[in-house]
């Protein structure tokens, strides 16, 4: 290979990384690969954030588009055909080189490759696959690879993508078809869910195969599973629509994560779209609610319903649920079952496990909870401990809301963001 022209690559990189930054997913976890004796790279389960941008987001992968030329005209997208942005296109070899050079210097865990659609969906998807295949076969690269399914790709290509990538994902983009009709008339939710279904089936098939063949390892298919992304706040869709749609996606397609991306104003944006700063608090509330769906046995309908179609912004969704369901409390930390403990505001999954481990050895007091860094200010109203029995009068009082979520200044976005990332609610 001749030496690349780094200045040219830098100018393309600035366009094609800029165009990719609106995709929220950055995770590089959930997969395992050993280094090939002749190559570099491995994946050890937990992903690594190699850097953080000033927007606080983790930089774990080289996240770029192959090209930002696109034949579609999705209004929320800076790359739509009618946008006046600068355009560029990487060749598959250029992407391979960049990935290897970045990885070798320990800047990244691997590659996250997506693309605008040129010619046709399949022609574009083939090029993405070519990048992954070259990295794996020619360069024996065993770092992490996440390929985005180009909307409308054929099943055959999706299957091939999964052979080389750790994760293959299709974006639903909008929670409901109505939103797509307004903003992306050429796209359908169904085409995304068809892809998801194909991925889900292959993933579970490959897992079965692997169980059977304990001696010869069957080829893995997208071992890190699939994720998807929804843009929120570009239309008027409620949190209830969004969470119900996520819940059904989780159930149908065994997704690892749904990413919620608060719509960010983009340069050359369409007039239909909001121009304000992204609704970050809402985005984080959605992430918190999402954790409750996945790890706390909550149903979407418990968190949002016709009366409360949107999550409250001034408190976390679990506390809001608790306020609406006071009859459920107080819960005795020293005797309640796991599921009950998980519903207590301020008790996260990890602390619930710790409490269960400790219980046989010790009567748990309020102070003990404090040592576990449970936010007592909130939690104390909902629990009985060895030394504390909450005032039932208080639990029923009108002021409870004010007591557990005092001035909004105390709930800085930063704290919310933390719990949205860790899932400890």
């Amino acid at each position, binding site marked *: 290979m001749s030496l690349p022209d780094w200045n040219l690559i830098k100018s393309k990189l600035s366009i094609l990384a800029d165009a990719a930054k609106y995709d929220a997913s950055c995770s590089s976890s959930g997969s395992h690969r050993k280094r090939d004796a002749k190559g570099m790279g491995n994946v050890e389960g937990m992903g690594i954030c190699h*850097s953080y941008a000033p927007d606080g987001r*983790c930089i774990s992968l080289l996240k770029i588009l192959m090209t930002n030329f696109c034949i579609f005209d999705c209004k929320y997208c800076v790359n739509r055909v*009618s946008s006046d942005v600068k355009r560029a296109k990487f060749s598959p070899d250029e992407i391979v080189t960049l990935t290897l050079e970045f990885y070798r210097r320990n800047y990244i865990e691997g590659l996250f490759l997506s693309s605008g659609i040129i010619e046709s969906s399949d022609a574009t998807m083939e090029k993405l696959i070519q990048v992954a295949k070259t990295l794996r076969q020619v360069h024996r690269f065993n770092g992490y690879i996440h390929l985005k399914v180009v909307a409308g790709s054929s099943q055959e290509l999706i299957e091939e993508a999964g052979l080389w990538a750790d994760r293959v994902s299709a974006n639903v983009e909008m929670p409901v078809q109505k939103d797509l009709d307004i903003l992306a008339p050429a796209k359908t939710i169904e085409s995304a869910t068809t892809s998801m279904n194909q991925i889900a089936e292959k993933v579970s098939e490959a897992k079965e195969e692997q169980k059977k063949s304990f001696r010869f390892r069957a080829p893995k298919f997208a071992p890190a599973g699939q994720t998807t992304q929804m843009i929120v706040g570009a239309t008027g869709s409620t949190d209830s629509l969004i969470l119900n749609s996520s819940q059904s996606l989780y159930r149908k397609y065994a997704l690892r994560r749904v990413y919620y991306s608060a719509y960010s104003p983009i340069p050359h944006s369409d007039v239909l779209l909001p121009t304000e700063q992204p609704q970050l608090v809402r985005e984080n509330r959605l992430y918190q609610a999402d954790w409750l769906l996945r790890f706390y046995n909550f149903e979407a309908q418990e968190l949002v319903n016709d009366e409360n179609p949107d999550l409250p912004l001034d408190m976390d969704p679990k506390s809001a649920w608790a306020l609406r369901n006071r009859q459920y409390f107080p819960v005795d930390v020293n005797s309640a079952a796991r599921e009950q403990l998980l519903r207590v505001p301020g008790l996260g999954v990890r602390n619930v496990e710790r409490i269960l481990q400790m219980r046989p050895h010790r009567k748990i007091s309020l102070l003990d909870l404090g040592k576990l860094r449970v936010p007592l200010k909130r939690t104390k109203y909902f629990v009985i401990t060895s030394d504390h029995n909450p005032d039932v009068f208080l639990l029923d009082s009108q002021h409870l809301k004010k007591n557990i979520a005092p001035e909004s200044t105390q709930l800085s976005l930063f704290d919310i963001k933390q719990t949205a990332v860790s899932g400890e609610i």
Partner: protein
Amino acid sequence: MELDFETWRIEARSLLQKGVPPHLTSWELTQSFFTIADSELKPLPSPKVPKEFMELAALVACARDPQRWALLYRLIFRLNHENAKLLNVVVDEDVHKAQLLAKSVSKDIHKMHAFVRFKKAVIDGQETYVAWHKAEHYIVKLATPFFVRRFGDKPWSIFTPDGSAHWNMETLSFSEGMSQSDFEHDDPFDEVWKTYYRSIYNPARLKIKMMKQEMSPKYWSSLPEAEIIHELIRETPQRLQNMSQTEKFLAQVPDTFDWSEVKKSALSCNACPLASQATQTVFGEGNLHAELMIVGEQPGDEEDLSGSAFVGPAGQVLAQALEKAGVARESIYLTNAVKHFKWTPANASAGGGKARIHKKASGSEMHACKPWLEKEIELVKPKVILALGATAGIALYGRLVQIQKERGKVRTDSAYAKTLLISWHPSAILRATNSDEASLRFNDLVSDIQSALAATKS
């Protein structure tokens, strides 16, 4: 010389066996010592060391905390004399302290895996990768095998103030530490990485506190990207302002079902910059109850002067095609996706005179004008829409349509009309490079009009 974990382990074992209680030991020197007569001790011939404790202790031993050896001995003593399950009681003060230290060490290891930045160097003719990193704790030995697993195919060295690690593709060895000022390596490739870092940052979401929490400034001195953080933060307000200042236009359509009134306000539309350049708005015209609507791209020079759609050369081609297809112009509704002419003056020195050269509307102009088209569709309610050319295609299909490929395919899932078709714009026939191509496209257009007509009858 610091005590190391191995030495501590041997010492602790023998103290435990003798039954020496923690408060009588001291670990401040390289070895522990205690002062008491053997006769007062309760010996413990085979002390138990649970696996979880060893895992915890291996981490705690690396902490930069002079108390750690005493803490570990206290724990192992209590595990043997007090409660074998002591580690489950995470709120116990010693357990809590040990776990905090272990957590801090693990985090430091994780951050080392994340923040080491290799630079490419050629040493003795061999491609080698070198890095300098400053860790919080004494973790070089624990953290570096990770880099063997990942980058074992090339030699590398990682230097830190507390010790350095070297991989020669066979063994991992350790040597003395090095200060940052002695580390002299440059990698021009850092610039490519900084370009990436700059571009992946979304200024609309600036969150400095969050970034610093995860990427503490104490690590910044060896991170190439950290050099531009301040610059990025400084330019953020300007970038945001530029973004919100890119102008956006949208035509304001009156809320009425009276076509003439709609047309009247369209005539005075100046929502986008095209209005100031054109002579007049060219609104659609024809049968207000038409079953077939034909949507072209935008008015040309002659349309601009006359105020009527499709009267110029392209309009004549369309008229011929309509005639050949057997469609009376009065029976249909004809309009354009954009209602104002856009042009640039021809180059006069090249003999262009005062000619106005047609220019394609930009994306924002197309969007600005779309409400007019949508209103026309709403009023006329055609059964069939035939889009002519790419601009009309984008407006009605929501994507770039390759006419060659998609003409002849009928779309029935459009929100605009029961049936949607696309064909060549007549100007594409005029622009054809040879007469064969022109007549091919003309025939295509005729047959597409015929299919559109047929669709109105189905």
